[in-house]
């Protein structure tokens, strides 16, 4: 954990760091670093494992409520038998997943078949290391943190390929190829939407990026990147690309009916299947965490008056809001076909992200403009964002559109 002037902050803010120091203070100096990092690993895993359990429940509850039905609420607490509005549902799912038989097809490549979920989970957990959860809660202080995040994320494609190839099944290999095509074609807009943030913040380290977003305009409006024209466009591109990277709703290829079964997850059952889902949810959390850090001002409070609420509280609130939007979109949109999906990436998101780079550059160059010029600056940046969006949008949806019908 990075050492910050912790004592100047209110108690609640210093609590996690103080707790950690309390646990490891009796250790000799040389061992303390190791103990601190181990403790933060345990903390990350405990927090995100329970968040994964609650997310599966929240997803089914929100989906249910959107569809005017209660969602799971019958699973009783073990041995107590009381129904807790579905809170015991993740417990029940976990036990079910653990006790289900883990079938490995005879022709499968046993080593890779086992390694795929492990690798996928390992890479997605690696990405949690550089997200600043609070003022002093940054697990690893890296200078090139953003690059590290996407380096770890990029390796997940290897794991998906392993899963598809090792199952020795025609459909899962075909599906793995498709999932890879989707991941690779959406990695470009994801990275390109990050570059403007790094350009404006001038650094790749996540803690510095969040520091940059710490000021408030006229004391009320937070200076988060999302409230600038290029930031808003960048956030939308990042969000769409994050949806695709974590195989979420409009892009969830594996469950698509055209995949005939379950895509590259076909030959997995029992705990390995649960691992795949845990990796998917971790990926979702990590990407939304990075989205919050880069665009929504990380752990910054929206208005200075609310700064008494601890910083990790704000980060959690924004993270949960973003995850809610993930689920909300899953409940609403139909699925895109594989060719439409890749066309959306290459012909729409990538050009928009490139143009967004220019808007960000213009934004940085014109930071000196004041008074009426500031208004002109917003105007120019706004047109630089909206213009290509409307032009490319019309080209993308050429030939589609609501129709009028005649009556006999």
């Amino acid at each position, binding site marked *: 954990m990075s050492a910050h002037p912790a004592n100047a902050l209110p108690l609640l803010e210093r609590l996690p760091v103080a707790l950690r120091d309390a646990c490891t203070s009796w250790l000799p100096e040389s061992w303390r670093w190791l103990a601190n990092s181990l403790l933060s690993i345990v903390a990350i895993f405990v927090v995100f494992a329970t968040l994964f359990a609650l997310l599966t429940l929240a997803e089914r509850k929100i*989906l249910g409520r959107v569809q005017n039905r209660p969602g799971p609420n019958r699973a009783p607490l073990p041995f107590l038998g009381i129904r807790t509005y579905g809170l015991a549902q993740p417990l029940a799912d976990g036990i079910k997943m653990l006790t289900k038989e883990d079938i490995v097809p005879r022709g499968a490549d046993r080593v890779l078949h086992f390694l795929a979920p492990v690798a996928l989970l390992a890479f997605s957990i690696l990405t949690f290391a550089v997200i600043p959860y609070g003022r002093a809660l940054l697990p690893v202080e890296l200078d090139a943190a953003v690059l590290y995040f996407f380096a770890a994320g990029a390796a997940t494609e290897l794991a998906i390929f392993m899963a598809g190839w090792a199952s020795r099944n025609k459909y899962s290999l075909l599906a793995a190829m498709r999932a890879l095509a989707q991941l690779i074609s959406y990695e470009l807009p994801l990275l390109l939407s990050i570059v403007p943030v790094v350009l404006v913040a001038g650094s790749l380290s996540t803690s510095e990026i969040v520091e940059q977003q710490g000021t408030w305009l006229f004391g009320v409006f937070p200076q988060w990147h999302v409230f600038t024209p290029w930031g808003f466009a960048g956030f939308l591109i990042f969000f769409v690309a994050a949806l695709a990277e974590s195989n979420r709703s409009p892009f969830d290829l594996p469950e698509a009916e055209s995949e005939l079964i379950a895509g590259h997850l076909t030959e997995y059952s029992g705990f390995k299947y649960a691992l795949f889902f845990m990796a998917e949810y971790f990926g979702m959390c990590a990407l939304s965490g990075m989205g919050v850090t880069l665009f929504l001002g990380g752990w910054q409070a929206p208005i200075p008056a609310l700064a008494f609420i601890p910083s990790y509280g704000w980060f959690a609130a924004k993270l949960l809001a973003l995850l809610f939007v993930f689920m909300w979109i899953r409940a609403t949109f139909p699925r895109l076909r594989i060719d439409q999906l890749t066309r959306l990436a290459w012909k729409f998101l990538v050009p928009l992200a490139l143009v967004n780079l220019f808007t960000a550059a213009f934004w940085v160059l014109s930071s000196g403009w004041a008074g009426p010029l500031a208004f002109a600056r917003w105007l120019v940046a706004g047109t630089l964002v909206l213009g290509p969006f409307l032009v490319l949008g019309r080209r993308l949806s050429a030939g589609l559109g609501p129709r009028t019908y005649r009556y006999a």
Partner: protein
Amino acid sequence: MSAAGELAGLSAAPGTTVRAVNDPFHGDLLEVSMGPHHPSTHGVFRMMVTLDGETVVKLKPVFGYLHRNHEKLGENTTYLGSMPYTDRLDYLNSMTNNWAYALAVEKLSGQPVPERAEYLRIILAELTRLLNHTCLAGFLLQDTGCSGTPLMYAFREREHILDLFEALSGSRMMCNYQRFGGCRVDPTPGWLAAAARLVDGYGRFLDEYEALITGNEILMARTQGVGVLQPDLAVNAGATGPMLRACGVDYDLRKVDGYGFYPRFEFRVPLGDHGDTYDRYMIRVLEMRESIRILQQALRDLPAGPIIDAKAKNRGLRPKAGEAYGRIEGPKGEIGFYLISDGGPNPYRYRVRPPSFINLTVLEDMCLGQTVADAVVILGSVDIVLGEVDR
């Protein structure tokens, strides 16, 4: 339409060329069997799809898994005894099946039908049309991938209609309500008030539903221009109902035959221009709005009087020898019953004209050149119910 390879005969969707040979350079074709337990084939229906990469090269529908020997059964049961079996044909729309069968027997035995019964039959048929089209919209969206939301909204509205049917005929889906010469149960004023309330509220539900679906760009991308059916092919294949009208062919039995008291009601028949999946979906939504208008008019001026003809003969009916063909505009198309009587209590020949079976014959022509994901959506837009396809 240029079609490379042996399948020159089949007319693939315009602009796509389809090859059907295992040419080594392009890799071999993938033979995939979708169903009969496939999650999105609307019952036990199987599609033997030959894929060239992603595009469908050949599609052989395989069905018969739900064949229950319906027509032979009809020949060994009395005329009245076959009535409950017609509920099981297209198990989503039992009221319209009953009406078509009752119409055929009335033509055979020449029994008149009182006015109130005719109005009731129209009300129930239009309610069934609402129910079926709402279900279709839900299933179609489920095929394109929404995780159940539109389907749940569709089923929520469908339950209200089914409650009305249950309160009237005793069973939600197996109504067995029509008799030769009229109806079986007279609706109470309370029932009529509930029906009026439902019909008035249905417009609001349709607006909300269209807001969720019709403008949705992803749905437009998935359905517009997909599964195009040429009007001439549709007419030659004998397709009827919304599928035919989506290709722009103006053929609606309610206007053509004018059976029942339909000429008394003022309603319009929507026609599509492109004949693709989006048109088939929109035609059904517009038809629902027309059905609401018919229902409002019918409920407003429902006459009093008997619901069955005084001299109506149901049990032990022995119509004079002859034949009759009664057909109505069911929600899926023209459903008809062809009966030959030899004077005995059982029909000599009992034949059903199933609209979804006949509409299914053009499935391959629509799916050629499309992708696998589209084949499922096109099947959804044809709106088949396996009870009627297999009989």
